[in-house]
């Protein structure tokens, strides 16, 4: 991805971006879900981030990390009362990325782990999201502007908290 790209008005660029979008959009939505966004917000923010990525495609050297960084910031700027699916008016205003505006709450309920993650502090959720997307502690530290020790500590605390929750609630899907 560090190669020089074609300019935005070349088909090769569109193809390049399209391949990236198809490969990464699910992972990005999932990243936001694990960061604590509701499904509707996650889809919306992921889509907005991808639009930004397309707009700045020529400048982005590491798009995989870039979209996570930007999406994270977008999520952190969301008002606290808008990060749940129930607060989102879907209908015609939903993101085109969402195949349907129906059944989001049910979908979230099916993935109980998301509810448990939401109980963690934001920093721990962020560290979890980056970690399970394959980033190393030092990389995460650079992204979050904290020390790698702090990353490891957050990760340890998050895992411990989740383990406790798993213990209380039995099997979790």
């Amino acid at each position: 991805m560090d190669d020089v790209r074609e300019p935005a008005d070349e088909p090769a660029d569109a193809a390049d971006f399209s391949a990236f979008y198809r490969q990464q959009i699910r992972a990005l939505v999932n990243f936001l879900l694990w960061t604590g966004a509701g499904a509707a917000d996650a889809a919306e923010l992921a889509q907005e981030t991808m639009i930004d990525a397309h707009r700045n495609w020529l400048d982005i050297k590491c798009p995989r990390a870039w979209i996570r960084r930007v999406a994270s910031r977008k999520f952190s700027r969301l008002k606290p009362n808008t990060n749940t699916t129930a607060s989102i008016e879907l209908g015609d205003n939903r993101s085109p990325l969402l195949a349907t505006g129906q059944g989001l709450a049910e979908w979230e309920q099916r993935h109980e782990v998301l509810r448990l993650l939401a109980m963690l502090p934001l920093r721990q959720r962020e560290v979890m999201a980056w970690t399970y997307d394959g980033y190393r502690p030092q990389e995460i530290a650079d992204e979050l502007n904290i020390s790698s020790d702090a990353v490891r500590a957050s990760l340890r605390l998050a895992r411990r908290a989740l383990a406790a929750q798993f213990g209380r609630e039995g099997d979790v899907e």
Partner: protein
Amino acid sequence: MSQTHPFDPDRLSDLHAATVGGLDDLLDVEAGLREALVADRHTATGRDLGLDVEGGLQAIVGPGDQSGRPRPPEPKEGNAAARTGSLRSPTGIRSHVARLLTSLDDVNRFAVRVHPALEAFALVLDFARIRDSALDINLSLSAELEQSRDSARALARALADDLDRENYAAFARGSRFRDREYSRATDRHQALTLARALDRHRDHAIALAISGEHDGALALGVACDIDRARARADALALDLDRIYRHEHYDRDTESRGYRAGSFYDGGSFEDDYAFKHALALTCAFPVPINRYTLHLVGLLRRALDQDLGRDFERDPWPGLDRLDPFYLDLRDRDRRERLDLDVPDRGALDRDSEALDRARHDFTTADLRTADLLWVGPHGISLTGVRWSDDTRWPDMPDSARQALRWSKQIGDGLYEVRDKP
């Protein structure tokens, strides 16, 4: 608790994979991608429609602006700047339209190809080519062709404006358009005026050929070009007619439509003319197409702006004074805002036109199995011009589409082109 439920970090990996996998139920990745590809243009388009017309045009024209109003971001520096800068030239934008179409998947390209705004753009390209041919034959013919081209361009511009505004309005308010009958009358009026003008010019060209005063083959070539363009204008008029037929239609609305047409004939022109046109245009097409429309319309508007600006700067034509205020306003704006003019290049025009033609019609290797052909038919979307082959993969076809394909003519080994008549 951790002793009864030993914690396994790998379990989190499994859960992580499970939530990713579960997203297939929620996401329409292709729809999202389509929006992402057009959204940067959409954003610019929406922004300019939220402003006054002058501000909006400046946002589109950008580099020519000297008024200090906000402009879209400049292209990035370096090599990329030079190449993305090509979008500021008419040739660059024309080429970009074809490239954009080509970059779409087959099904969406197939759906977009019939959009009236795109049809109008192809018409303008045709006129630019015809005009260049005519310059070789007869200057007075050229001047008349210029007038026809102007009409076509005004029509294209109006369509582009309307679609743009409609899309913005739909996004902003979810409202429906008013006075559709008025729109119907004015759209048809423009299209038919264009068709009549083309008729006249075709006659001129043929007369020239017969008189032997000029190169006969060249004149006949021009006549054929004009004929083709006229067919497109007719098709556009039919498109408009068909589209508005989806709306409620009765004797009263027809009457109001004629009155609106007379109003237009008289030269009056409301500022919100463009605002009254195009809900039906967008309603008549499947939703995904509108997303492309947002992108295409932005490009078309810029192309038309630049095309107009170039010609006005190079070759002001006094006959323009006879055109309507809308058009005069366009001229003034273009004069003000266009500075970096492009030298017309006949070869580039031909290439752009051919590229656009390929993008809109070449489906010889396309996989159209998921295309929607329900709208195809004599009163629906036309397949005329579509080139296909034995390798083209079609969906289950309604009778109307099957009939349209039967009217194809073999144009090569295993290659066919759909014609509008058997």
